[in-house]
């Protein structure tokens, strides 16, 4: 199994790990957003969605453990890449100017990643590792977003996620070798649209719920 480490441990191998796990998270974001849209249907619709999801039982636990594994790989690999890339240029430039390749998203990737890491822990404390025996999940969500500080925090976090995705989406296709003159322009537009959908889609939920 030495070859696995010698392949995935290389510069390209680590990028492949980031790309595959990143693609999985894009899928997760889509599914999570679709589920959360039931919030716009009111308390009953959302509670019923949550009940249906939890009726999956062990399947849900397996999915959660799978997500956790992807999460660990993405975070650990990302951290290794960040530290190695920092080390690759010990003496910085006195004048550092971009030729126009970098974007807000690509420039801030490790930092938005770190913020998302903190947000996910906070988010799970809020809605996952919480006593659900006395209140419905909708009541817990509504209670959280009644607080304007929480609302602002969640909206900010969604902007950060959108910025992360704006680079991550097209970048993962490039890493997987899917850069084709016919399709790359479409992938780039799709990536920006997806970032927008994620940012606006999730970002408006706290506002809507908070206004109820």
């Amino acid at each position: 199994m030495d070859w696995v480490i010698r392949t995935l441990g290389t510069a390209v191998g680590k990028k492949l790990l980031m790309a595959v796990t990143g693609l999985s998270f894009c899928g997760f974001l889509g599914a999570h957003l679709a589920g959360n849209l039931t919030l716009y249907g009111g308390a009953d619709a959302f509670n019923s969605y949550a009940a249906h999801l939890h009726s999956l039982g062990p399947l849900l636990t397996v999915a959660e453990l799978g997500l956790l594994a992807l999460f660990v790989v993405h975070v650990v690999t990302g951290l290794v890449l960040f530290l190695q890339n920092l080390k690759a240029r010990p003496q910085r430039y006195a004048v550092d100017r971009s030729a126009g390749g970098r974007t807000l998203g690509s420039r801030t990737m490790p930092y938005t990643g770190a913020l998302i890491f903190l947000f996910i822990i906070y988010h799970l404390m809020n809605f996952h590792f919480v006593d659900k025996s006395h209140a419905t999940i909708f009541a817990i969500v509504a209670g959280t977003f009644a607080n304007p500080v929480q609302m602002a925090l969640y909206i900010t976090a969604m902007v950060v996620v959108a910025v992360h995705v704006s680079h991550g989406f097209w970048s993962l296709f490039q890493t997987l070798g899917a850069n084709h003159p016919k399709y790359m322009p479409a992938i780039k537009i799709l990536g920006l649209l997806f970032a927008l959908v994620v940012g606006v889609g999730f970002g408006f939920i706290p506002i809507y719920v908070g206004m109820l």
Partner: protein
Amino acid sequence: MTTKSIDITLKVWRQKGPGHKGRLETYRADNISTDMSFLEMLDVINEQLTLDGREPIAFDHDCREGICGQCGSVVNGRPHGPEQGTTLCQLHMRHFNSGDTLVIEPFRARAFKVVKDLAVDRSPLDKIIQAGGYVSVNTGGTPDANSIPISADIAEEAMDAAACIGCGACVAACPNASAMLFMSAKVSQLALLPQGRPEAAKRALAMVRQMDACGFGNCSNERECEAECPKQISITHIARLNREFIKAGIGSSVF
């Protein structure tokens, strides 16, 4: 034809040797003809420094025709200066204005040791090529022309990759000091052609591993390299390298 001349200020990185601490030193460059190339301007400064009994600025250069890949410094944060698709030797002083201050630094990467001032050791790039190994070519009589059909599109694309002069501007421009664009050009030019196929898997794996061993960073698709490459090599070659790596690492029997 009248020749225009400009007065500029230079802040040049001076460093005695690999182990020494360097610093930026300021020089006046007055009455510089706009017809001069950037390197000719440095020659003029060096002549004056020599006459003054001071150490001239060491910088890499050779053909001064933009094809050898030997020259290259970072001018105001841009490898090979502000013009696109140009090596430093082909950059002319007419692109600058009187009163400009130019900060000139060596290509910076852990893998590129500063030899002196602006001169850097780019031999790690040679090590990556060496790791790529050989290409099988049949011996015997001269083969018939067109006995191996290659479409014009593929030949052109291989040639685009082969245009890499190995100057290292991609490494200098990369926020992560990665040599991915350089390596992808070398992998691409051979991967596209039938002559390079038999060793493709071995080559992709060995070159990527050698890049890591040399201490280059990891590509994070910032696209600064293709914007700075004097031969304007596209990152589509990096995508091809990634495909070659996936095929070699997961699909082939090469370990």
